[in-house]
Structures are given as C-alpha cells and as structure tokens.
C-alpha cells in the first residue's frame, strides 16, 4: 500500500496558503469595521454627520463636500482610504467624496 507523504515544499505551501487566507479575512473584517464606523458616524448625531433621521441634510453635505479629504479623514479617525458616495435607484452616482485612490471607471472620489 503506497504510503501518503507530504513533502516539505507542499507543507510550506499549505501553511502559507492558510496564513494568507487568514490574513485576508482579518484584513477584510477590519476594513468592514472601519467602513461601518464611518457609516455610523455619518448617520449618527455627530458633528460631521450629514444624515438626520435617515434624511440627507443638503447644507451639511455641501460642507462635507467642500472639506479637505484629509481633514475629513482626521475627523472620522480612520486609517484606511475611503470613499463615500450616493447612488440613486438606477445605480447612478449623485455625489462622491473620498480618496481618488478608489476611483475608477467613472466614479471619481474627490480629495
């Protein structure tokens, strides 16, 4: 009966794959937390919140749009780059605010 044997290279590859999957998962979880945190700040009764009881305050939104991205980022106290945008029922972008690093194919977050 042939003996099943994993050579050292395969073992190393498996461990590396597992580490990569775990790392990606952890990273994604952290990003979700950060994005959720931004959403909560925006929706919550916060100084820079522009959503009140589920309705966007046009004036405050305008202020946020005119705010420097890095300043806005400091207010939110987040580490990763982000982009906030409003999408209508047809999937069209009405407004966007955030890092230009996230823009592509027509969505340009303005810093």
């Amino acid at each position, binding site marked *: 009966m042939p003996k099943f044997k994993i050579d050292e290279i395969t073992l190393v590859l498996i461990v590396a794959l597992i580490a990569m999957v775990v790392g990606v998962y952890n990273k994604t979880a*952290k990003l979700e937390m950060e*994005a959720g945190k931004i959403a909560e700040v925006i929706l919550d009764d916060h100084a820079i919140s522009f959503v009140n009881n*589920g309705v*966007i305050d046009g004036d405050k939104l305008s202020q946020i749009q005119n705010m420097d991205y890095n300043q806005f980022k400091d207010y939110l106290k987040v580490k990763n780059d*982000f982009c906030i945008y409003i999408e209508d029922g047809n999937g069209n972008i009405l407004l966007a605010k955030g890092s230009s690093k*996230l823009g592509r194919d027509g969505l340009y977050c303005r810093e």
Partner: protein
Amino acid sequence: MEKKRILVVLVILFSLIIFLNENASAQCTVGGCGGGCAGECTSGTSEFGGVCSACGMTMRRDCDSGGAWGGWYCQPYKSIPILVSQRFYDLPPLGDVSNSVLTSNEQARLLYLRNSVIGDNYDSLDSKEYPSWAEYESLAIKQQSTYGQYGQSCGLCGGTIKCDGTCSIPTPSNYGQPCGNQGTIQCDGTCSRPCDSRQGQACGNCGTYDCLGNCINQGLCFVGQTQNLGNCGNCGILQQTCQGNCQYAPAQCINQGPCSAGQVSCSGDTTITCAGNCQWQTGQNCNTQDGWYGGGNTQTATCGSVDNDATSEFRNYGCSGGSCTYSVTQTADCDGSDGWYGGGNSAGCGSDPNSVWNDYYVTTNTGSCTSTTTCSGTGSANCDSNDVCNNKCEGTVFTSVPPMKDYYVVSNSNSCTSTTDTPSTENCATKASTDSDNSPVAYTVPGSVTDYSACTLGGCTGTAYSDSCSGTILTEYGASGSSFTSSAYECQNFESNYCSGDRYYRNEWACTSSPGACTDAADTQIGTNADGDLKDKECGDSLCDNAPNVYDSTKTATETSCADGLDNDCDGQVDCNDPDCNGSVAGTVKNADNQSVSSASVSAKKGFTTVATSTTSQQGSYSIASLSCDSYDLVASHQDYAPRTQAFSLAPNQQLTINFDGGNALVFGTSCEQDCTFAADNIIHASCDGKNGCAFYDSIAKAACDNSQPGWFRDYNETHYVACASGAPQPKVEIEASLSCESGTLVKVTRIVIYNGEPVKLVVAACG
C-alpha cells in the same frame, strides 16, 4: 621827492584851513550874524518877530549889553514898536482885550485910548497923546500883568494860569477839608478814601460791614451753632442752639434716655434694668421660671399608715415692679394614694400574689405622683401558708381533691381570705388560654397570654407569651380558645397632632416596657412658625407662617415685589407665581390686507403647553386678562390662516400690547409663498405658480414638482431633472458606480437614506 610830497600835503591842508576860515567869516557878515556876534545890535533894544501860539503873544529877542542878540522868546504882550526911553508896553490885540483882567469900563477905556487917542503910531511927545499915556500905561500894565503870569503854576490841584488869568485846574473851595471818615476833599471834589465796597452787606454772625470794612454789630454765635453746657436729665445734654438772630436760645436738655440709670421695671413678663447710658436693658424672662416646685418623699413611711409627704405647687411667674414674682395656680398631693396594692386570687390552689404597701408622694418639682414600697414595718402580705390542697396532676389532667382551701390576700389589702372550691377536674391541654390584658387588641395595656398545656398540684400550667416591642412595632398576644393569637401593631398609629396654646405638637407614641405596650412618648413641636411670632400656622396663626423671611410686621396686602423671592403677602405664592403680579396681553389680529380677523384663537404658550387662550372679537381684538409674569409664545391661529407666533416676556403687572399686523399679520393658509409652498405647509403646489414670486421653469417642471418639497429633485424628462420648485432642467449625469482599489481589498457598507425626497444608497467604501 619826499619833500614834494610833504609840500603837496601842506598845500592841501593850508587850502582847507583857508576855505574854512572864509566860510566862518561869511556867517557873521550875512544876515546880521544870526545872533551871538558882538556889535551886531544896539544894546538895550529889542526885536519882535512872529506870533507865539499861546494867548496871541509876540516873539521877541533882546540885545544884550555887548551888542549881541539874545534868543527868541514869547513876550507876554503884543509887539509894539515904542522907544525904550518911553518904557511903554504894547497892548494886546484888540480882540484879546475882553480876555484880560480889566473891567468892562477899563476895557472900553483902553480900546478908546488905543484906537482914538494913540493909534498905531506912538508919539509920547504928541500933545494930544501925551496926557493919556499915563492912563494907557497903567491899564496896559494891569492887563499885561496877567500875561506875565501865564503858564505859571496856580492853585493846589496842579493847574497853570491861563491867558485869561484863571487857573486851568480850579481848586475846590473846600479842598483839603475833612470828608467824614473818608479822608479829605480832593481836587475833583471826592473824598480821598472811598468806603469799603461791602459796606452794608451781611458779615460774620448777623453783622454788617461798615465803611471801613469792619464787620460790626455781630451776634454771639453763628446760626445753628450748638453749645453743650453739661449733662442733664436722663443722660441728656444741656444744649443751647444759636437762633436766626445769632443769639442763643434758652438751653434745652436733649438726647435723654427713656429711664434713669439703675431704675428697674417690667416689659411684659421680662424684667428690664436701666443701664448707665439711661437705656433699658432686657433682664430676665420670668416665664422661664414657670413650673412645679416642691414635692418629694419627705417623710419616712410606716407600712400600713398614710403619711404626709410634701405637696408641690405650680408657680406661674410674671414680672412686677422690676422683679419676678409668681402666683400658685395648681398644687399636687399624692398621699391620698398611699395603700396596699396587689393581692388577689390566682387560679387553683397554689401560690397567690402578695399585696404590697405603696407610699405615694409627688415627684420632686413635678405635679405627678410616684410611689415607693419602702416603709418601716411589714410592707408585704401573703396568705398562701394557710392553703389546704389535696390536688392531683395526671398527665395534663388536673383534679382538685377536697378538703381544699385556697387562702389569698384580699385585693389591695393585707387581710387574708380563702375560697372553698368544689372538686373539679380539668384537662389543661384543652383549657382556655388566658390573656392578662383580656384583649388581643389592648395595645396600650401590657399583657401576657398563658397557653395551658400541663399541670402541677397547684393547677394547670402553661407557656406565657408576653406582648413585646420591636422598635415601634408591638407584638400583641391574645387568647383564642385553648391556643393564642399574635399580631403586629404600629404604635405610631396612635399618634396625632394637636395645638397646645399657639403651638402645634405631634403626640408621639412608642413601644416600650416588657411586657410591651404602646405608650405615649414625649411630644414634638412640629408647627410652622416661619415668622417667629411663637404662633404656629396650624393653630390659627395665618400670618406669614408659610412665608420665610416675611413677618407680620412686613407683610403686605398684595405681592408688592415680584422679584425678591419672598411671599410678601403671605398667601403661599411667591413673586410671579402670585396672581398679584399677573399682567395682561391684549391687541388686535389682522390679516395681510389689514383687515381684522375675528374668531381667531390667540394663545399664550409655554413650550407645547397652552397657558391661556383668548378669541378675537368682531373687531379682531383679543385680551388675555391675567397672565403670570414669564416668557411666552403668543400664537394667533385661525382655520383660514397660517398660524403666527410672537415671543414675548411679560413683566410683573405689565399691560402688554401685541398686535398681529404688518409683518406679523396672518396670511391665508393657502396663500402661496415664494418657494411655491402654502403658508401653512411645506409642500409645493402647482397652483401657486405666478403668485407671490412663485415661478416654475415651465409647465412640465410645474407638474413634476407639484406636491414635492423645496429642494427636491424631480424628473423633468428622460434626460433632465429639475430642482423644485424654480430650478431649470439639468441634464442627468448617469455615472454608474464602479469602484475599486488601486491596491488592497475594497469593502463597502451601504445604507438607504432619503436625498432630495427620494431613497438613495449611501455607500461607504474603504480600501486597504
């Protein structure tokens, strides 16, 4: 050469000397020498020139003895060419004759001689003229004597003699004579020393200035001045005051105290003593001495005999004649209670209680009685030694067997008696329990319940359950058949409040003793006496007992001050909470067309609470008559109009007028505003188009925006949208969201929110 130069100089110098000498000799030869040259005139003669300025005199010079002319001078008479030997003097011009010192006759004579006899050519040898020369000479001399004095000083006032012989500054006839107290009369007729300018004015103490500036006729003092002359009366000062005439009024004794030092008196029930400053000083409040005096167990009791202990008395102290005195209003004597206490017969043939001699006396300095069993002799009586008992105890069954005599002490005596019981049998287990206070609700009587369960030869025995206390809770036991009951009772239920005099008390109850019972405890004063008048509100003193810092003396009929935090009128309502401070609001309500709006509701509101409401009359007027001072929103509303609100603050007692007119007038609820909404809502109405500045871009935009809200976006057509209500169509920018990270992982969180009236997705994308 050198010699030639010297020669030329000498020639020039010589020529100059000659030239000068020639000119000097010419002076003496031309024009009669000009004066100063000897031999130029005949000694003793005179020469006359022009007219001097003064008095018409003539210029004259005389030839001296050396034959030289002297200087020109004014001759005090007119030049008349006469011979020296004749020594006649010229006459002045005819016109000046009147100014001379001559009399009118002499003047006329002189003129006659001058004109008619002598004429212009004098000839003293003329037989016609000669006889008149002496007269003429004398008149001329007389007249010329005046001219001779011309210019000389005259009088005492610095004048000079004038042409007419008078003095230019006449000297008053009374010059130098005394001028009262002002010196002497001067040249101008005034006195040399004028009076002081203040003469006659008031000065000093009612005095006046005299001519010399002295203040005379002064009084002794200045008005209002006081002078203390010593002490008088009750620590007073004998003082005199300066009156309006600067004379002292009769002295008066002032600032006297109300009493003389050392005097004693009473102020109500308080002694007062007059202190050294003649002011009353509060002494002792005699009422503090009110109370019981005496009593005590003053005699050694003999058992069985009533003694005679001291009585006590209640002294009601007051003040009389400056000292505390009292009257006895009540006495207490407890000897009447001396006697035997106890004894009696207990159930069964056994031990019966003793009787004891109690000696009652008044507790020292009180009105209450107390007792002691201490007495000389035998103070206790018991009759049990005489008992004859043949009883049996079998299990819980007790049987009394005759002969049986149970001796006991007759209650409250020391004598014995006995019972002769008939034989009996009782089962102690079923025997009815007994309660010494005879009731399960006798909360104020200490007692015990005996629950019988066994027997002795003396009879049934059982367990005793005594009433007991825990705090103010009484556990009360009661007999219930052969068993017992227990219940808890709150002794404070007995408490009640009452007035004693003017003070309000709570009748306190506690649970004490063992066996326990509810007992009356020391009462507590609980009245309200905020005004400190020793009269409690609960006992009828309605004045200010509920108003801290306001007293009967300061109480006012109404709330006079609405901002001092005090209940000035003691009605329980402070400042603006008191209706006395209420104000009112009134006014009119009109619409935008300045027409009165009737049946409109005008409400004063505090937040969402309506405090007062009024309805406008036919004339549109309203009035809220009574409103406490505060800040309000005044809301005018009518079914046909949009409500209008005005904030206002009403000061205490203010009669405020607030009109809803002009910019605050009511507008119809359906009236359109500039943003195409009704005044009463925030909805865009197509019907507002063209009204009050409302304008839609076009009919399509109007239809699209109808029933939306200002700022909302609405589809104009397939390719454009409009921002309601007046926005122009804008091309739709359709950018589909497609987001990615330049590197790393992209995470999106989506929330549904409302934007411009439509649901949209709010997406937060993070990259990392």
